[in-house]
C-alpha cells in the first residue's frame, strides 16, 4: 500500500490510467499523483492546458485525455517525478514509456538498460528509444524506453548498469 511502503496499489492506478480507447489513439501523460499536496507546476507546464486542478493547488491533477497530445513536457516539470507518458501505438507488440531520470550515467539512445517496476524490481532489459534533457536549470532527464506492450504500465524506472 502506497502509504505503508511507497508502492501504489492496483486501485490507486485504476484511478489515473487512461481508457483503452484513449491509449489506442496515441501517446498520453499519466500522473501517478495520489496524494493531495499543495503543488501545481504540472498545470503550468502543459502547452495544451490539458492538466487542471480544481478548486485549488491542493487538488489532484486531472489530465484531459482529449487535450493531452503526449508531448512529454510535463514529465521533467513535475517536482515529484510522478508523471509518465505512455504510447501504446508505437509498434505492434511494443509501447514507449517516457520517465523522469535524475541519476548518472545518463543512457544513450539505443542502449539497453534495466527497466524497473514501481517497487524497483528488474523487469527486463529494454532499449532506450530517446533521451531528452529537461534543461540546464531543471536537470531532470526524460528517458523514453521501448518495452513490450504488456509492461507499458509496469516499467517506471531504469537502472543503467555499468
Amino acid at each position: 500500500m502506497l502509504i505503508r511502503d511507497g508502492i501504489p496499489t492496483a486501485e490507486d492506478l485504476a484511478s489515473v490510467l487512461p481508457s483503452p480507447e484513449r491509449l489506442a489513439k496515441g501517446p498520453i501523460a499519466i500522473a501517478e499523483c495520489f496524494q493531495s499536496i499543495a503543488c501545481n507546476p504540472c498545470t503550468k507546464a502543459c502547452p495544451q492546458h490539458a492538466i487542471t486542478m480544481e478548486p485549488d493547488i491542493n487538488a489532484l491533477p486531472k489530465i484531459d485525455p482529449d487535450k493531452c497530445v503526449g508531448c512529454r513536457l510535463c514529465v521533467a516539470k513535475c517536482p515529484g517525478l510522478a508523471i509518465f507518458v505512455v504510447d501504446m501505438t508505437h509498434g505492434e507488440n511494443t509501447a514507449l514509456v517516457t520517465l523522469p531520470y535524475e541519476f548518472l550515467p545518463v543512457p544513450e539512445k539505443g542502449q539497453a538498460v534495466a527497466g524497473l517496476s514501481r517497487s524497483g524490481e528488474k523487469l527486463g532489459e529494454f532499449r532506450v528509444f530517446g533521451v531528452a534533457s529537461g534543461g540546464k536549470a531543471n536537470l531532470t532527464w526524460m528517458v523514453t524506453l521501448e518495452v513490450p506492450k504488456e509492461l507499458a504500465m509496469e516499467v517506471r524506472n531504469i537502472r543503467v548498469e555499468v
Partner: protein
Amino acid sequence: MIRDVEVLVIGGGPAGLCAAEAAASAGAHVLLCERDGVPGGQLVKQTHKFFGSERQYAGERGIFIGKKLIDAVTRRENVEILTDATVLGMYEDGVVTVLKDDKHLKLRPKKTIIATGAAEKFLTFPNNDLPGIYGAGAVQTLMNVAGVKPAERVVMVGAGNIGLIVSYQLLQAGVRVVSVVEAAPRIGGFLVHAAKLRRAGVPIRTGWTVKEAYGNGKLEGVVLCELDEKWQQVPGTELDVPCDTLCLAVGLTPLSELCWQAGCHMEFIRELSGHVPVTDENLMTSVEGLYAAGDVSGIEEASSAMVEGRLAGYAAAASLGYDAERSRAEADAARAELRELRSGPLGGKIRAGLEKVAEKRRNAVC
C-alpha cells in the same frame, strides 16, 4: 558603540532572506546577520525541486531558489549582509549583541525578525553516540555542499520528507541506501518522494525502529525491529543490518533560544514540534517590534518559511511607515498564500498547531 539598525533580520535562510527582501523592497534599511559564511541556510543543500505554486518557486530546485533569493537581496543597496555573524544576546533594553570576527558588536534595532530555523532531533537507543550516526541533514550537507561521499551503506530512520529526500539524494551521490525505517504505521512525507525512492529499489519499512546500534569505535551495523500498535518492540522480529552510517531524520525542533532571551511569550505546541513564540497575524511576538518567521515559529516546509519571511518583512516595514499601503496589501497576499499552502489534508497538523497558538494569544490578551 551601539549601532542603530532599522530592521534586523537574524538568520539568512529562506525565511530570513525573504523577510530582508520584503522589508527592503518597501524601503526599509535592513541588516541581515547570518552565522554561516554564506547566506542561504539549508537551501544550499536542497537539490530537489520544491512543491507549492509559482509564487514559492515551485518546480525549481532549492539550491537555485537559494541563489535567486541571495541575488535579490544582494542587489539591494538598503540591505547589508553580515556573514559569520552569530547573534548571541537579546537584552531588556533592546540591545542585540553579535559575535563577528571575534568581536562583540552591539546593535539597537527598531524592528527585529528572528528567522533562526531549526535543529535536527535525536533518538534514544543503545550506542546512539557511535561515530557514523548522523542527522540526515548533516549527511546532506557533507554530500551536497562539500561533495564528500559520506557513506557506503546507509540505514535511514524516518520516512518524513527529510528522510525520503535525503535517501534519494544519497542514491544520487552513489551511496547504497539499505532501508528506510519509520516507527509510525504510515509514511509521513510526500508519497511522490516515497514512490520515487521505492522504484529505485529502496525498501521502506513502516512500523519499524532501531533497537540498537553496534560497532567497535565506529558504527558497524544496526538491529532493527518491528513495533506493535502500541509502539512497543515486538520480540523475535530483530533484523541485523550491517551499515557504516545511520541517518536520523526524526524531526526538527525550533531554534527559539533568542525568543526566550527576548522574553517572548513561549508555548510548547506539539504540532509545531517544540517551544514556539506566540505570534499574531503579522508574526509579531508578544514583544513589540519583534517578529518570528519560518521554522523558529513552528516546523513546516521551506515554501511556507519563505512566505512567512515575506509576511514578517512587509509587516515590519509597514509598521515603520514604509510604503505602508502596499506593504499591508503584500502582507495580506502572503497570509492568503499561507492559508492555501496549509489548506490541504497534510496541513491539518500545522492548522491545529496554529489554532493552539491563536488560543494562547487570546487567553494572554484577555
